[in-house]
């Protein structure tokens, strides 16, 4: 492998699945029921390469060899494939203010600990999902199309996390959205699937709006869209937004109104892609797609793009403590609301969908703390969640496969006797999700709670960040070290050192967020085990749709389940006890910014939090057991105790209805009005004006032959006569 450079390897990770996708399209008909081969080969090869890159990166960072007190050095490698678009001199005349002097967009890929970690997760889970799909999608008329789309998705997602330029991030941000659209609408003859696909795309477009405007503002503020530093032909250094030059300078990031606006727009984008309040409404509907796609895209990978974005842009967020706090508020609120909705869902996949929304909310809550612990905890949870949620979705798919497409938990029960492997692996996933020690979710959730706790009770952690650990580093107009920050932005920032949002950033807020997260933990355990008990315990019942062949799924499906179950069982303990992931991630350039790195704390196991978390999980499981263990799943439900709240939860807090009444319907009315104005007012006016010459013409009716050629000729001759007359006059 010595003769293949790391940059070639990096390019191979997205390239191999892309080739797989193209081959699947080209050869799909020839391969028939073997159409999965190119896709699986491509993703598998990409996985191998990604693992090589990860181990190479780990060697470079030196995981394990250095002490934890050792400050992490930024490690990155950037490779430029080709110049996508460029305008050398993009400054508009008279525009002395903007930093935007050149518009240069290279197709540049990067490798750093964060990217390397995510590439392994994307290709690894992608591979397992693809293998699982051999069994799950068997016999579907769209079999090749499915594998082509999954491959295309792995390509787009790898590019998204490897891109070293904000425009490129936007490109693949939308590209994964398009793959998601096509996979949700995979069974496009089902009207619900077609509708859900459209809804997902449109809600995501609202998020994309945020990302687009944020990108514009970044370009105007920092004069480049690259993450990395670049050198121009004349030798000038252009500091990248997340490049070494800027990272070294604590005051290089714009705070104030402009900085906050950029961060809030990022948050909007993240809310769209990662299904956070108030843009979460597309994800439950997205369950209309094939279950393996839900597992890969709508649980393990694509929906974590928002986490990635916020983590990647950590230094920008650090300059805006108010925006950071809002990230946590959105995250913790989403986590709680989605968990509440999840408690009354009867569709197994929808329970898991709300659970995904809720767990992503956890990750946002951790990110918003703005501490190194928070960022690494979010990524840690992203990794473990990818394992156990992919596992749970595939388990649900296995159930659905055996039940003849039925997924309503009230219609089956006691399936542990029918499909023991699925039941056992599902139970492991449920334990991990509920946060029961020593399964994976326990450790990552513990870190998240710890990060929130450290902000709510700073003294208890022996740390002395003030209300805002990072606020002190926020750049203000007067102290820019990098000349490229615009005076205009400075004007915006200068007046207020922070923004009104900073008022949210108090220990009291963080304490509330911590308690919300703890309640969410209990709810999570409840709805997870409610689903486990309803599906797998009680008297064995299968719906008519399953026919007489309700059975365990084929090995192509159960082997991926077993692998993911193993990972869900041990990965948390392994990654936590060795502290390998956290110390590895700390070398990600974005996390070496002084504002982040200064919050580093020695790794610790928080017994008090572990006990609280375990207690919460235990309460949830016990309540679920009281209501559902061993009972018929179509019997009376726990929610009868909820009273009016049941209506609220069952209707998902009425989000869809509110959006329909407040946004969709009014817009449709405006559109109808616009169409009427168009037809009657504007076009009517045109017709009226057009009638005037006709009326005049009736006087000279004999000239009207009705032949337009003649009119045209008359027009041309007339104009030429006018010309000649004018020329004659001008020449005198």
């Amino acid at each position, binding site marked *: 492998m010595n003769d293949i450079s790391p940059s070639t390897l990096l390019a191979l990770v997205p390239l191999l699945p892309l080739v797989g996708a193209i081959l699947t*399209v080209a050869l799909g008909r020839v391969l028939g029921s073997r159409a999965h081969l190119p896709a699986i080969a491509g993703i598998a090869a990409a996985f191998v390469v990604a693992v090589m890159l990860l181990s190479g990166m780990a060697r470079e960072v030196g995981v394990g060899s250095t002490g934890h007190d050792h400050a992490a050095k930024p490690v990155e490698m950037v490779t430029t494939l080709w110049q996508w678009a460029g305008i050398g001199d993009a400054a508009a*005349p008279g525009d002395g203010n903007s930093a935007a002097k050149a518009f240069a967009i290279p197709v540049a890929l990067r490798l750093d600990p964060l990217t390397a970690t995510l590439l392994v997760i994307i290709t690894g889970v992608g591979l397992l999902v693809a293998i699982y799909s051999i069994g799950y999608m068997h016999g579907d008329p769209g079999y090749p199309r499915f594998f082509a789309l999954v491959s295309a998705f792995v390509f787009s997602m790898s590019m998204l996390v490897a891109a070293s330029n904000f425009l490129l991030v*936007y*490109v*693949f941000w939308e590209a994964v959205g398009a793959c998601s*659209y096509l996979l949700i609408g995979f069974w496009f003859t089902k*009207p619900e699937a077609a509708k859900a696909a459209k809804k997902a795309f449109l809600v995501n477009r609202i998020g994309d709006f945020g990302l687009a405007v944020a990108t514009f503002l970044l370009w105007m503020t920092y004069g480049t869209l690259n993450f990395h530093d670049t050198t121009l032909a004349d030798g000038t250094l252009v500091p990248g937004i997340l490049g070494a030059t800027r990272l070294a300078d604590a005051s290089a990031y714009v705070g104030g109104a402009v900085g906050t606006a950029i961060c809030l727009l990022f948050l909007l984008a993240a809310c769209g892609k990662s299904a956070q309040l108030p843009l979460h409404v597309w994800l439950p509907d997205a369950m209309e797609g094939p279950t393996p796609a839900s597992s890969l895209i709508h649980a393990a990978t694509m929906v974590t793009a928002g986490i990635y974005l916020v983590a990647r842009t950590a230094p920008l967020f650090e300059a805006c403590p108010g925006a950071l706090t809002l990230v946590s508020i959105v995250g913790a609120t989403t986590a709680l609301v989605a968990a509440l909705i999840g408690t009354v869902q009867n569709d197994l996949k929808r329970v898991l969908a709300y659970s995904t929304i809720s767990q992503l909310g956890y990750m946002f809550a951790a990110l918003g703390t703005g501490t190194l612990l928070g960022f690494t905890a979010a990524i840690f949870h992203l990794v473990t969640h990818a394992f156990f949620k992919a596992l749970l979705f595939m388990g649900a798919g296995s159930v659905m496969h055996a039940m003849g497409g039925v997924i309503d938990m009230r219609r089956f029960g006691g399936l542990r006797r029918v499909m023991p492997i699925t039941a056992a692996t599902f139970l492991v996933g449920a334990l991990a999700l509920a946060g029961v020690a020593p399964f994976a979710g326990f450790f990552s959730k513990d870190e998240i709670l710890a990060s929130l706790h450290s902000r709510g009770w700073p003294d208890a952690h022996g740390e002395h960040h003030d209300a805002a650990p990072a606020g002190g580093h926020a750049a203000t107009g007067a102290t820019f070290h990098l000349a490229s920050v615009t005076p205009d932005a400075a004007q915006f920032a200068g007046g207020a050192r922070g923004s009104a949002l900073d008022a949210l950033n108090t220990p009291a807020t963080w304490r509330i967020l911590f308690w919300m997260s703890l309640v969410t933990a209990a709810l999570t355990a409840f709805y997870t085990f409610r689903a486990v008990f309803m599906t797998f315990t009680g008297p064995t019942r299968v719906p008519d749709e399953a026919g007489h062949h309700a059975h365990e799924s084929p090995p192509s499906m159960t082997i991926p389940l077993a692998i993911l179950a193993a990972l869900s069982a041990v990965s948390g303990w392994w990654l936590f006890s060795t502290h390998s992931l956290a110390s590895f991630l700390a070398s990600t350039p974005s996390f070496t910014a002084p504002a982040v790195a200064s919050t580093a704390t020695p790794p610790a196991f928080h017994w008090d939090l572990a006990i609280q978390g375990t207690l919460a999980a235990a309460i949830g499981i016990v309540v679920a057991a009281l209501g559902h263990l061993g009972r018929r799943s179509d019997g009376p439900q726990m929610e009868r105790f909820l009273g009016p709240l049941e209506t609220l939860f069952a209707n998902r807090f009425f989000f869809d209805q509110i959006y329909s009444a407040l946004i969709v319907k009014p817009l*449709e009315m405006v559109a109808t009005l616009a169409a009427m104005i168009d037809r009657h007012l504007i076009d009517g006016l045109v017709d009226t004006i057009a009638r005037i010459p006709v009326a005049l013409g009736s006087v000279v009716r004999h000239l009207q032959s009705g032949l337009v050629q003649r009119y045209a000729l008359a027009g041309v001759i007339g104009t030429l006569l006018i010309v000649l007359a004018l020329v004659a006059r001008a020449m005198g």
Partner: protein
Amino acid sequence: MNGFSPSSHLLLTIAAPLVGAVIAWLLGSRGVSAVRQSAAVTTLVTLALAAWLIVRYLADPATASGLPYGLVEFPWLTEGIFDVRFSLGLDGLSLWMFGLAALLSVTAVFVSWDAIKDRPVGFYVLLLVLEAAMLGVFAARDVILFYVFFEFTLVPLFFLIGIWGHDERRKAAVKFFIYTLTGSVLTFLGLLTIVLWHANHAGVVTFDIESLVDGTKIHPLPMTAAGGWLQMVVFLALLAGFAVKVPIVPFHTWLPLAHVEAPTGGSVDLAGVLLKLGIYGFLRFSMPMLPEATAVAAPWLFGLGVVGIVYGALVALVQTDLKRLIAYSSVSHMGYIVMGLFALTPVATEGANLQLVNHGLSSAGLFALVGMIYERFHTRNIASLGGIASKAPWLAVFFMLFTFSSIGLPGLNGFVGEFMILLGSFQRAWSGVSPAWQFAYLVMALLAVAGVVLGAWYMLWAVERVLFGGSREPPRSAGHGHEPGHADHGHGGHGHGGHGAADDHDRCDLRWHELAAVLPLAVFVLWIGLTPATFLAPAAPAVRKATAASAVAFAARMQAETTATVARITNP
């Protein structure tokens, strides 16, 4: 190659469709297939010539500095001081539009293959004359010649709509003709005024566009009350024609009618090429010759562009006719181009110039596919269509692709132009206008970005209803769409869905000539999307040159306004 100079190459490319038109006319007695085959060969030969010319253009280092290529010049109407020349040449402004016109002419012929049974000779002759006019108008370097070609694009299209159109073809044709003719006569008078102004000051009556640009630099048309605001008056006269052509809201109502009634081939040329003449006119005449007036009008046209984006999208949202929906989407998308053009920043104007080509490809592709849908199902009513993805998967794939291009999905061409337009407009709003304008500009720029959401809404709504779902109508009736999809182009993983899928009996996928109509467009949709730099760079110097004077004038105006505001605040 020595014997084949760029000049004769250019001339031959423009003349080829006319020669083909004569051949098609002579073959008239041999029946439909001889005529359409000759038309197809003609457009393919013309496309080959045009492509080769573009390759030669790109290979010539002189063009990189903005020099025109393939100059042709004959005295045409030289009488005393009167000097009209038959003068042709390509530069960065015209290069891609020239190529697009040649490309879409092929599409126009192939989409008409089965659709036109009635008087095919006349149809194809007009289509080829239209091609020559489209090629000529972008190559013209003389005002009179430009105007002649400009009018010549009008007449064939008038007959194409009026004779081969649908139920309301007469009304649509007349409206189209009167509307655009009225506008273009005013434009012509405006251009003549520039010629005369220049003649008065330079002593020669030249119609040469480049001389006029240089001349108006030395002797700009007056922008003062004493000079009768002549520059503004002329700008408005030019605007009359260009605004109708683009069309800028509220001068757009001819467009949906013309599109809905036009035969598919006509729609392809109309949406793909002819709408662009308005923008091309701004770049070729208004901006370089009338910079101060452009600077005054820019904020308003920028705003009208945004109005067009939002208004066009909203009206599209409630259309029931698929073709009408796409016509309104054109109104919306042309709004982006107008906005980008009058943002007057390098990124926005170059993006707008590229977006001319991008919109040409996606809208022509969509109109072509709507025509194919109509041939199969005899309706364009969105409510009556459905499940086409099961019956004609390749048709659906292309429809999806052009939809994605139209809504600006990254990786495809539409994204590049849209993103650059919005980025450049934001740059303008952020730091390139006086404080008095800034709020309005920021709001407009944000509205334009929001328009991207609306754009996805109506297009995906249409896709959901038309392509997806179960079928609602018998797939075909007598006369059309009998052949099932050919295996030679039907390979690949795009089968029909799992539920209620149509069996092979119902299949009515693309036939070879339909594939030939849309596949080349799809290639460019991807090509431009992946390496836009290839397409941006050759046009950049010319766009820069065309917009520089206006951008400077605009900056001066904003500077003056800022100074005045500051003075007012400091010395109340």
